[in-house]
């Protein structure tokens, strides 16, 4: 990852995007049966031949495949993700309404997970092989084996139902009539449990990377030099070791963000949270394929965007990669 040039990375991201879009285009068209049912979500069986032809022409499905493919790209580049025949709405409108919720969950959980994960990882490496280090390590590995939706369900059972502390579903209380600051508090309360679930599950990867990087940094010569010249332990930890461990940690954070976006599908389902993931889940239930595809594509785009952001941060944090 270190040695790859900026151009190489950009090429890779473009490749991922082309692949995702092509997959979206070809999947419904390669499936057996009439693509109309998959693409438009129409009950093909109930229609006469003329009606079918009409809808096919309307959706552009009667044109040669290559023309359809070009049109598909053209629409996407104009920000048109197609039309959901089930929900009778343009998909772009549907996803734009949901996107802020998912972004809110993913970003806020990542920020919290980064702070806790990096701190715990650095502490663990600092106290290497102590009981606390080993205890933390085991705890993190166990958390890493938990299914996210299960943790969410347990949190609801205990925190919301048993103790009635926090709301268990939705993004805000429906028809609450709250305004201004009170409404913000209400929205915040609804965010706590889903963000907590996502955070807990993101921490282990951040912790493990930080711990590993710190361990190798702490064993290196310049740390010994810093100690030898009489720098205090705190200064060695923060000014020398932490700074040099940051770059790989940023990379893993960006990768985790990809997982966090993917993970929102299950977590939003558990908490009935109205984000993109929940939209995808609802689309699965209603066999609304165009919406599922749009969800997949948008999550992919978001992941690529944050990867790109991480690449730039990496270069900023690790000056050695600048020349490349």
């Amino acid at each position, binding site marked *: 990852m270190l040695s790859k040039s900026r151009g190489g990375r950009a090429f890779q991201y473009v490749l991922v995007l082309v692949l995702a879009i092509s997959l979206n285009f070809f999947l419904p068209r390669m499936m057996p049966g009439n693509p109309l049912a998959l693409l438009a979500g129409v009950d093909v069986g109930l229609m006469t031949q003329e009606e079918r032809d009409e809808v096919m022409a309307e959706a552009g499905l009667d044109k040669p495949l290559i023309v359809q493919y070009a049109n598909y790209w053209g629409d996407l580049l104009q920000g048109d993700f197609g039309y959901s025949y089930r929900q009778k709405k343009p998909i772009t409108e549907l996803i734009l309404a949901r996107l802020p919720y998912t972004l809110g969950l993913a970003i806020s959980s990542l920020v919290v997970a980064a702070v806790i994960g990096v701190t715990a990882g650095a502490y663990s490496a600092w106290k290497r*092989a102590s009981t606390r*280090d080993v205890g933390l390590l085991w705890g993190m590995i166990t958390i890493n084996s*938990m299914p996210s939706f299960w943790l969410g369900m347990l949190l609801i*059972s205990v925190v919301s139902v048993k103790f009635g502390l926090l709301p268990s579903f939705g993004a805000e209380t429906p028809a609450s009539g709250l305004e201004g600051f009170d409404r913000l508090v209400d929205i915040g309360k609804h965010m706590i449990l889903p963000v907590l679930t996502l955070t807990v599950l993101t921490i282990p990867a951040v912790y*493990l990377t930080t711990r590993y990087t710190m361990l190798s940094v702490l064993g290196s010569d310049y740390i010994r030099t810093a100690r030898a010249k009489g720098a205090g332990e705190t200064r060695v930890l923060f000014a020398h070791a932490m700074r040099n461990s940051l770059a790989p940690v940023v990379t893993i954070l960006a990768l985790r963000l990809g997982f966090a976006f993917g993970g929102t599908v299950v977590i939003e389902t558990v908490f009935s949270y109205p984000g993109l993931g929940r939209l995808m889940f609802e689309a699965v239930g209603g066999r609304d394929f165009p919406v599922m595809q749009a969800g997949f594509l948008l999550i992919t785009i978001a992941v690529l965007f944050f990867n790109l952001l991480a690449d730039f941060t990496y270069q900023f944090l690790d000056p050695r990669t600048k020349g490349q």
Partner: protein
Amino acid sequence: MTATELDLANDAGMATISEGVKPKFRLTSAHVSAVIGVSLILMLTLTAIFADQLSPYDPTERIGRPFEEPSAAHLLGTNDIGQDIMSELIYGTRSSLTVGFAAAAVAIFMGTSVGLLSGYYARLDSVLMRVVDVILVIPFLPLLILLAAYLGRSQSNTIIIIGMLIWAGSARVIRSQVMTISKQEYVLAARAVGATDRHIIFRHILPQVMLLAIGQFVLVISTAILLEAALSFLGLGDPIQKSWGTILYWAQVRGAFLTPAWLWWVMPPGLLIVAAALGFALIGFSLEQRVDPRLKQSR
């Protein structure tokens, strides 16, 4: 996540190795994790094999009233249609482990093939590694959902889809090992006496990466089990097979987690998923540590 990140055996090893002292044998946490991992998996595997004998009821039969609380007859109560939850869990072990094993087998076959080709043939390397990079960036869960929705719900589809999505990490690990081995003298010697590529790959390189591949296989099972659970939880699993994820799907649909039933309907399947995922992960880490090429080089 790789074992090098985890660094279990290396609690103290890091310093010793970098100082050039040969590490002494000691009871490290790698041994502990191997023992715990093996015991967990052994118990679950036996449960899966002897499900017919262990299970008190047929999990597909309605043997009681719906939503019964735990009793002597039904240790974990009954579900929404009056099936015994305990029996569901026992049979669920069978289908969850089957999917985990099979999907990991698909993944490790792909991963080892790509790793061998990529590590041995420099010409293929840049192309194959680019494919690996692309797969690693795509958010898998949404893609998994999309593919499962298109291809339809069946156990074999679940296995193939999961397997085809999770091989990339292993391919990368195996490739780096193959590259190290390819440069060793005995491989060069074999080539000098005119051994074919096929002979070198299968006779000299494959046996050397086998242990690493097995370590990866076990780690991938852990991932596969978690993905299967997530997929089934979203209602995209095989509707005929009862897996742990499916049980949780019905618990969610029927709102079990909003009632006291969370203790016997939601808690147990999740604990079993944790036990399986953790068990395989622990075995995988300790296996991987024995073959970590990075540690070998520095010795």
